[in-house]
């Protein structure tokens, strides 16, 4: 009788646990599929700084606490600076004489995905670890940087080309740079990498096909494969022009085990 009671108790507990397991799985799947579009908020403005949401819009002066949607383009003048909080995990400090666009700020499942396009000028970036996978990439006319929770400064101008500096606190291979001419570099601590020569043809290709200034996408649009914004860090793969993933560095930077 005692044995029967124990068996019954065990069976009940198994039956009771099963729906709970199913719910966890469902929650995880739902969380994976969920796409949230984030925004950026202006923390500080010094000097002359303006923004616009697309190429047809007029330039408007930036103000503190102003909320900026993905797709925003920002420009700063001489002796000017803008500080932004971008999405849930990044802070951007845009320095003088800079032109920069932020085409994507989303949370795709467990991944915080941010894309920044630096046309020229310089910016300092800090990507925090907030318990999600950081997929933060900055593209310049010469290179693309993939970053896992770290801080760095990136510059591009017509004299020195692309330059990226890490900060001393960075971990091993914290920043992975892929130059447009298919050379990869990994930065640890306060390492520096630079590329003097831009590739105007590839830059124009990026500008034409990636369309970083295209603007924000709603979650419904993101579900549609045809409207999915092209991955700036992985453009050839996302357009299907390149077979297989040859961008080893970018893939590693995105993997959760390297967080």
């Amino acid at each position, binding site marked *: 009788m005692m044995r029967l009671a124990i068996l019954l108790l065990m069976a009940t507990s198994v039956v009771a646990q099963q729906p709970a397991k199913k719910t966890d799985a469902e929650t995880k799947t739902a969380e994976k599929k969920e796409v949230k579009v984030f925004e950026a908020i202006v923390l500080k403005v010094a000097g*002359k700084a303006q923004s616009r949401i697309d190429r047809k819009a007029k330039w408007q002066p930036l103000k503190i606490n102003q909320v900026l949607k993905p797709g925003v383009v920002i420009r700063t003048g*001489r002796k000017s600076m803008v500080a932004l909080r971008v999405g849930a995990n990044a802070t951007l400090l845009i320095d003088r004489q800079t032109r920069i666009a932020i085409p994507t700020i989303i949370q795709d499942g467990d991944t915080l995905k941010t894309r920044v396009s630096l046309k020229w000028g310089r910016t300092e970036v800090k990507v925090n670890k907030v318990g999600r996978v950081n997929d933060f990439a900055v593209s310049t006319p010469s290179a693309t940087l993939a970053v896992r929770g770290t801080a760095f400064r990136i510059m591009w101008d017509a004299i020195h080309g692309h330059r990226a500096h890490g900060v001393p606190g960075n971990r091993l291979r914290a920043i992975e740079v892929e130059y447009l001419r298919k050379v990869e570099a990994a930065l640890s601590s306060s390492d520096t990498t630079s590329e003097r020569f831009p590739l105007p043809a590839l830059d124009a290709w990026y500008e034409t096909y990636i369309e970083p200034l295209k603007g924000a996408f709603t979650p419904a649009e993101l579900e549609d494969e045809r409207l999915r914004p092209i991955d700036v860090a992985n453009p050839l793969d996302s357009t299907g022009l390149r077979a297989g993933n040859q961008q080893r560095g970018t893939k590693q930077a995105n993997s959760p085990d390297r967080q």
Partner: protein
Amino acid sequence: MGFKGPGAGGWGLGALLLLAACARTQLAETEVAGAGKDELDFWDAVATVRAVSNHDALYALLLTYEIDPGADYAARVAMAKKRGWIREKDTLPEKETARTGWIAKAVCIESGIKGGVTMRVFGARERYAVNELNYRRWLPDLTPQQAMTGLQLIALLGEAEDDNTGAPTTNPEDLPK
């Protein structure tokens, strides 16, 4: 059957071609006029040009060093002569491509760059000024007669601004190890 040199017509044509090759390019328009009133519009417009005109370069220098840009081009040229950027006898045609030489000289004068021994002895001549800025890597190894692209001018003036305001250096080799 000896070699016959070119006749008078041939030498004339050669001289004409040589002169044409040495002449500087005239641009269709300057960006100062088309950029509107906003300073940032002007910089955006300059960034797109493959060779900056004298007027664009002059206006950009006056903006960077916060000198009154005056009402028109003549006033700006007069200011450039007054500050020693160009010689009194020099003419700067408005739409002609700007020479790196006088731009470098203006930057050296306004930023107080004294340069090496030669520049200290002979003053901020165009050639020495360009050499000095090449040495500082503010210029990408240009010569005094070369033209500059708009983005190169913006980068050069950005370096000058950093130097004037005491901003941290942007040269990777100069950063602390």
